[in-house]
């Protein structure tokens, strides 16, 4: 243990509450009262860019500048951490036709701009933007082509000018306290926790205004602790004051979440990582770890999404604090097992200090702050599609099981090749402002879009449990025990079990299922991921000096792969041999299939602990829902904390634990007005249940719920 633990972790006996000032601030934000400040819908950036015939990099810099300039200063009388966005939408740099011409033969990722990575916030806060500017100036003196650096400087100046306008307004309003903070940051290195949070608020908001999205917050406790430590040492702040500042910062992250692009509101990647090993080794847990969790508990909003790194030595006290958050039903913390993730990243070629420094990019995929220009989710392989095709063709040809497995392997490899090929055409647009926040871009005079230390791409193996169950049913019931004749199964699959209800029952109730610590199914799950990892490994280079990392997430694919979607290359599968009707949802990421018998949460850990996560290191959590009634009695929080220990011990990689009450969810569908603030974990993020599309609401209601 380290010197940082001199300060006791605040006791669990006194769970935090928001002070009245912050409770009112939260209420106003949830009610959208700040929307009245959004006086501008969007800007016309194109006309000037066209008139000046600006290059793409210069347009990207101009965007940051104009968006900063267009913001009206908003300082609410009770705010200590300021910035409220007043321009709703980020304008386009090009017309659609121009963009099509620019990207001919290339692929843009999702919306285009760089997303789903994490800045080196520690570096930014400790250096300040003026130091970054000096670095850019020095590099410009040496640079053959200064365009990138000039753009980067333009963005720095834009953010500084915005901070300057806020400082001026604060002074005019008689808010000398705020003016002093804004005079210093983000220009100078932060000296206090207050300055660090204000600096982060502005620098982070400017990323969103620059068109970036899924902007991760990284290892918050690691980079914030020096400031709190200095405050405590100087007697400027106590832990209660720190908790209030953290809570205010967290509330501020919720101001603009309705403006952020995502599949559903809440899918915005404002994730932060707490705890875990330090870069140089040793436990990184510090007082900010617990204070941030306490602040998140008191705030109880969808942002920021907390991730907590754990290992066998994580104290029960810290685990219990995390479980208090779980109990609230916010769907976080997401638990990350250092004992599995770090070796996985090492095996994937990450340096030891970097592997120890991992965070989640936005949802669950691992990346290294400041050092990763990874595209962590280029798409998903439909494991059910691969397995279904293999079963239908293999059984029709009376092939042995090994051959069916070969077919599934070939099908997955084909899917990986198609994704990889598209990914090699990937065009990452220039990102001058994001580059300022990354390691080495200014120093080398190279935009982030040309790559960083790590440039891997991630592919998820989605809906894996259903695929493994289908294989297990065929091997056990059709081929080994010969209880089901192959033709009967094929006919039933074609007719969606219309005339063979008993077969459906048998497949559901009798066949081995993932989630029951049954090697007949779990072994096939592990095998599928092995084959998938082989396919990713043999897909070679991703064209950006990186490899393809295999992952286990499903994101929205649990709906898309089941019901079809324009965004999917693979067609939706029909009925499947695990006893699943056509159109029924798959389980989320790693979880037993819906509507099958499952022994319980420990067996689920044991099933999914059998995967070789050293080869599946892109992330994608084991997803479990607990009944809220489980928490009714005293002692339940401590039990669930021990369950987290068991998760570490089981060798699983990542765990997303949600607390639900199905009756409440049904009532919220019927009477949304009564449940406006009901939060649920959807996939790598938490959102307001009533704001979700019904299809995602229903998928959640259909999940396995333990402890009811």
């Amino acid at each position, binding site marked *: 243990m380290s010197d940082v633990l001199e300060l006791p972790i605040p006791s669990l006996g006194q769970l935090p509450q928001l002070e009245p000032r912050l409770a009112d601030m939260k209420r106003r934000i949830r009610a959208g009262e700040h929307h009245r400040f959004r006086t501008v819908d969007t800007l016309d950036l194109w006309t000037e860019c066209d008139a000046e015939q600006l290059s793409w990099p210069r347009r990207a810099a101009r965007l940051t500048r104009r968006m900063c300039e267009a913001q009206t200063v908003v300082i609410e009388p009770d705010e200590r951490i300021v910035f409220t966005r007043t321009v709703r939408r980020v304008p386009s740099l090009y017309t659609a036709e121009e963009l099509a011409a620019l990207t001919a033969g290339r692929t843009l990722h999702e919306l285009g701009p760089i997303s789903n990575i994490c800045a080196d916030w520690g570096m930014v806060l400790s250096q300040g933007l003026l130091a970054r500017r000096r670095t850019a100036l020095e590099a410009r003196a040496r640079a053959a082509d200064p365009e990138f650096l000039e753009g980067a400087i333009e963005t720095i100046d834009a953010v500084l000018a915005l901070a300057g306008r806020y400082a001026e307004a604060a002074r005019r309003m008689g808010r000398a306290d705020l003016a002093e903070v804004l005079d210093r940051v983000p220009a100078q290195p932060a000296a206090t926790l207050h300055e660090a949070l204000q600096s982060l608020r502005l620098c982070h908001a400017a990323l969103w205004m620059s068109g970036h999205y899924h902007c991760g917050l990284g290892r918050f406790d690691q980079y914030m602790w020096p400031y709190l430590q200095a405050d405590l040492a100087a007697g400027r702040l106590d832990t209660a004051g720190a908790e209030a500042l953290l809570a205010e910062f967290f509330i501020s992250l919720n101001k603009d979440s309705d403006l952020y692009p995502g599949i559903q509101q809440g899918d915005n990647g404002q994730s932060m990582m707490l705890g875990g090993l330090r870069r140089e080794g040793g436990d990184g847990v510090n007082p900010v770890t617990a204070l941030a969790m306490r602040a998140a508990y008191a705030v109880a909003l969808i942002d920021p999404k907390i991730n907590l790194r754990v290992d066998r030595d994580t104290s029960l006290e810290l685990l219990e604090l995390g479980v208090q958050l779980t109990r609230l039903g916010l769907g976080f913390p997401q638990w990350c097992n250092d004992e599995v993730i770090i070796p996985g990243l090492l095996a994937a070629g990450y340096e030891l200090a970097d592997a120890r420094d991992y965070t989640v990019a936005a949802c669950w995929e691992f990346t290294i702050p400041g050092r990763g220009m990874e595209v962590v989710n280029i798409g998903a392989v439909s494991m059910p599609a691969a397995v279904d095709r293999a079963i239908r063709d293999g059984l029709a040809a009376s092939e042995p099981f090994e051959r069916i497995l070969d077919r599934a392997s070939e099908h997955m490899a084909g899917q990986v090749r198609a994704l990889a090929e598209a990914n090699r055409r990937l065009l990452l647009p220039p990102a001058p402002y994001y580059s300022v926040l990354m390691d080495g871009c200014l120093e080398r005079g190279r935009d982030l879009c040309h790559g960083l230390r790590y440039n891997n791409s991630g592919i998820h193996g989605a809906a894996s449990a259903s695929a493994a169950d289908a294989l297990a049913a065929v091997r056990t019931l059709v081929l080994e025990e010969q209880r089901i004749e192959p033709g009967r199964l094929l006919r039933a699959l074609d007719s969606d079990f219309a005339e063979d209800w008993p077969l459906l029952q048998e497949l559901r109730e009798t066949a081995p299922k993932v989630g029951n610590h049954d090697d007949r199914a779990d072994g096939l799950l592990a095998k599928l991921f092995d084959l998938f990892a082989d396919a990713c490994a043999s897909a070679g280079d991703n064209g950006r000096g990186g490899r393809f990392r295999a992952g286990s997430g499903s994101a929205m694919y649990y709906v898309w792969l089941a019901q079809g979607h324009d965004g999917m290359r693979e067609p939706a599968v029909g009925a499947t041999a695990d006893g699943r009707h056509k159109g029924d949802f798959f389980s989320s990421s790693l979880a037993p299939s819906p509507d099958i018998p499952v022994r319980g949460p*420990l067996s689920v850990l044991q099933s999914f602990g059998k995967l070789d996560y050293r080869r599946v290191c892109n992330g994608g959590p084991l997803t479990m829902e607990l009944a809220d009634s489980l928490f009714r009695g005293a002692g*339940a929080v401590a039990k669930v904390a021990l369950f987290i220990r*068991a998760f570490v*011990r*089981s060798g699983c990689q990542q765990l997303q634990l949600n607390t639900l009450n199905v009756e409440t969810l049904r009532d919220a569908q019927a009477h949304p007005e009564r449940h406006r603030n009901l939060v649920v974990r959807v996939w790598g993020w938490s959102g307001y249940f009533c704001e979700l599309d019904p299809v995602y609401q229903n998928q959640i209601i259909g999940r396995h719920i*333990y402890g009811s």
Partner: protein
Amino acid sequence: MQASRTGVVFDIRELTIHDGPGLRTTVFLKGCPLRCAWCHNPEGMSPEPQVLRTATGERTAGRSYTAMELAHILNRQAPLLVDGGVSFSGGEPLMQAAFLAEVIDRLQGLHVVLGTSGQAAEEDFRSVAARCDLVLFDLKLIDPEAHRRWTGTDNRAILRNLAVLAELGKPFCIRVPLVPGVTDTLANLRAIARLVRTLPAPPRVELLPYNSAAGGKYKACGLDWHPDYPEHERVRTDLQPFDELQLEAAIL
């Protein structure tokens, strides 16, 4: 070697909260000699597997396992249960004492808790309790007539087994289900406290407030549910009778 005995189990639940210390898996053995008016697990009463008919369809409660099979299932979980162990509940697990003893003998390195009503033959009680690491012993009512009225039998065997348990020197703990108007009366709680006080090393007392959600299951079991006590009334959660006698007591 003797063939493994067979027993009937109606549930194996993982991550149970109230069945002993740490992370636990609880095995619910089927069959119970008592008929407590407030019973939450009516599917545990009959010793035989039975079909439950619920709104969502039929399911069978109760499955036969050999002791070897059941022990195998539990032993496979041992790596995750190092911070806890397994618990046996019911029904009344001692209705299947020989089976249970064999299961426990086959467990490897697992902490074992027995949750019992105490209603069992003395030799069965001794045999199983001696094999466990902790016994959670129910005390419902001290007055024998009241006990007969609310559970169907008097409490003679139960009180005798409590004395046996105190002699055995096993760690144990008293569990009192708090049922409104039945077990939560001041007189009953005081009587329980007095009895516990007389034990050589008075154990901790844990009070479990009744939760009025049992009714639905009775219908599924084909039983009628006529609680003739005020089931929706708040239970007395008063530790004073125990505090007065300097007993360690807690509400779960």
